[in-house]
């Protein structure tokens, strides 16, 4: 084997020749493949030269003439050019890899595949790629593309006074990030809002998860009657679109006219509670609402897990003299948590960014003296307010980036801790 590699350098030669796609394949005497690569390359450049030159020009300059060049549109065209380039590079890399590996095969003195074999080979190894390509393609445009946009936007000075079409937007490096930590107003409010965001995320999520699991176990008791109907009712909150429920709650919690103060609390002799004007009560109401909205999902998941736990496990435990509590702690809970852990994590990150419930319930209110954000504003709703009233798009993007870094690192760390992801590859 080693002798061969000393004698010939087909692998290296083919790879180097492939800098012009297809030539390496010709060198390997795989003419059909070479022609395909050549045609692909040519058509790529014919089809995309305009898109690319326009896109990269726009990305670098963000436009030169106000009222004619729209910086933001140019930025977006630039991102499209980036994506197209990335796709091209993937094909290009594959071309070099192909030439290299086939050249190596020749170095090793092995026979190359015939056209027919190649076709079958391509079909087999290409099948998974073929299957994921529609989904992947959509994801690139729906998930990757907006993220690229936000990232790039955070390095621009896009705000009211640099708004196309009247003005151009410029690259300003990390100035936005510096400003966020330098400006007193933003920094000071940031700390207050961040504190509540953390409390909210953990309070609301933990409560909804605990409630879901607790109820699932409660309903799953063997001798409980009417399981089907109870389960049906309990997943109703999940079935109603959440923005409708939130708006309904917002009506119900109204201090003077809402049914809660007026009818429910009145009936048990408690005076009106300032749900909308005292931050403490608003926060409490929000946590309650989120639990109401969120528990059914956990409930359904847990119910599923519980039903899959074999009865023998409990019977064996009973024989060993385990108490109810022991059975719960040693069997039920670990199994449930193990199975639902990834879902629970996504619930935490979801609530961290749960704009709808905060915004629709009380608009982030009540107002607090001496600060920019309302008493129930979490980071995301506060950013929304800042952008809407001040049109600070660049800064908003920068804060979004900071936020995302927090969420992503927590999520990643959590996922890594979760067994079910570790075992993923064992199948």
């Amino acid at each position: 084997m080693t002798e061969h590699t000393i004698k010939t350098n087909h692998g290296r030669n083919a790879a180097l020749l492939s800098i012009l796609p297809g030539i390496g394949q010709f060198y390997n005497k795989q003419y059909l493949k070479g022609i395909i690569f050549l045609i692909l390359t040519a058509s790529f450049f014919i089809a995309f030269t305009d898109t690319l030159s326009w896109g990269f020009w726009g990305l670098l300059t963000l436009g030169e003439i106000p009222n004619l060049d729209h910086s933001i549109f140019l930025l977006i065209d630039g991102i499209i050019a980036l994506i197209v380039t990335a796709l091209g590079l993937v094909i290009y890399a594959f071309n070099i890899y192909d030439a290299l590996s086939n050249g190596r095969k020749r170095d090793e003195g092995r026979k190359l595949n015939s056209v027919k074999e190649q076709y079958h080979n391509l079909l087999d190894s290409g099948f998974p790629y073929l299957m994921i390509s529609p989904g992947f393609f959509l994801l690139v445009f729906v998930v990757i593309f907006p993220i690229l946009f936000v990232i790039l936007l955070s390095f621009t000075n896009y705000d009211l006074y640099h708004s196309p079409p009247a003005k151009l937007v410029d690259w300003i490096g990390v100035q936005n990030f510096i400003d966020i930590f330098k400006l007193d107003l933003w920094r000071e409010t940031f700390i207050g809002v961040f504190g509540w965001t953390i409390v909210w995320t953990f309070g609301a999520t933990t409560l909804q998860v605990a409630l879901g699991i607790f109820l699932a176990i409660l309903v799953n008791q063997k001798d409980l009657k009417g399981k089907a109907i109870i389960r049906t009712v309990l997943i109703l909150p999940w079935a109603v679109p959440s923005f409708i429920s939130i708006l309904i709650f917002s009506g119900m919690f109204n201090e003077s006219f809402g049914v809660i103060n007026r009818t429910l609390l009145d009936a048990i002799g408690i005076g009106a509670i300032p749900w909308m004007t005292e931050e403490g009560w608003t926060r409490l109401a929000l946590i309650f609402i989120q639990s109401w909205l969120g528990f059914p999902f956990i409930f359904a998941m847990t119910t599923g897990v519980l039903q899959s736990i074999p009865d023998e496990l409990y019977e064996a435990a009973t024989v060993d003299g385990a108490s109810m509590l022991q059975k719960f702690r040693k069997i039920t809970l670990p199994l449930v948590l193990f199975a639902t852990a990834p879902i629970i994590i996504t619930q935490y990150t979801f609530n961290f960014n749960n704009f709808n419930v905060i915004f629709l319930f009380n608009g982030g209110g009540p107002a607090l003296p001496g600060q920019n954000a309302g008493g129930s504003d979490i980071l995301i709703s506060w950013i929304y307010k800042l952008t809407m009233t001040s049109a600070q798009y660049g800064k908003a993007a920068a804060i979004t980036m900071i936020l995302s870094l927090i969420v992503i690192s927590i999520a990643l760390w959590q996922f890594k801790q979760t067994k079910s992801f570790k075992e993923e590859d064992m199948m």
Partner: protein
Amino acid sequence: MKKSLSIFMMLVLLLGLLAACGPDREAREQSTEDENNNTENQGEEPKPEKLVVWEDVDKGIALEPAIESFEEEYGIEVEYVELNMADKIRDQLRLDGPAGNAPDVVTLPHDQIGQVVTEGLLQEIQVEDAVLDTFSESSISAQMFDGKLYGLPKSTETPVFIYNKALMDQAPETMDELYEQAKELTSGDQYGFIAVLDDFYMAHGYLAGMGGYVFKDNEGALDRNDIGLNNEGAIAGAEFIQKWYADGLFPSGIIGETGGAARDGLFNEGNAASVMNGPWALQGMKDAGIDVGVAPMPKLPNGEPVKTFMGVKGWHVTQFTKNPYWSTKFVEHITNEENAKTRFELTQEIPPVKSLIDDPIIAENEAAKAVAEQSQYAIPMPNIPEMGEVWSPMASALQTIATGKSDPKAALDEAVETIKTNIETNHPGN
């Protein structure tokens, strides 16, 4: 290693190449110059086939007769689309304009003009003085920004005193009188007078009436550095407001976003004898079967009127139109006396056309008359972009004043402080 390096080098080369060949600008620059020429030699602008107009929701019926006569006179077809004016027209114009499907003419509330012009969405229009003279002065000044005219006024509105004739015989002359009446009328679910005073739009009248102001008005130019929302007058106004809440005359639930809805609900069900609200609410009240009376706001304790905010809706020519001349013509056409009158008849929107104020159609309409009268004391909302920084801190301050959480002076001082900081951070350089 070598391979990845060479790929990288290739990439850099490629990028450099692509970036170097920017677009061929000359042809495009040429065409913009042509367009500019067009706007200057207006008479030569060829007639377009069609103009597109964005109108406020439910107000299209008032536009139809005007469009018909315009088509007849000039042979230009006009198409209108109804959009929610509050912010949708602005937001959509921002997106659709540069994307190439912008309308030629839009309607906007005047307080958005400064911002929208700064973003370059509207263009200045040239109108003869004779046309300008037909409108009230304050309504034209509301359409000006930086000394340039950006539209013609379509209608004005300002909050007035609206009462339920079944519960209140006639409108009181002074707020003190109203306060006494309210005390008598308020019990349980019944209220004498309701105003949503944690909303700065409504509260401004009281602060300004007592001597406060948002931005100092130096002969038409607003001074963004002189904010009078925590001067003695403003504080007195805020104290006056606080009294109503503290004495339990307003239900505690009319706070925040849903306050307005709650007020409307109470009035429409006959549970509130009077409210402070805009003329836009009248139709709903009549539909609810209330026998409404409308009057200007009662006088404040210092003898001054409540200096409410005036909103002026206007018609504007967008930056993106290819037919600025004909669009301006259309704007002139739909705001002329005849079409303004039709608008009032069909939508009850009050046009600030001088000759119509004394027209029996308005003079004999109780609501229109009250609004017209109140408009004399009203102050147009500032239309500079800095105004955007005022709303939210003031709402916070007023809310804490209303709930009694802080004392008026402290709250207003803090609000003004916040407004100033925000203006400095978000509107540098001006």
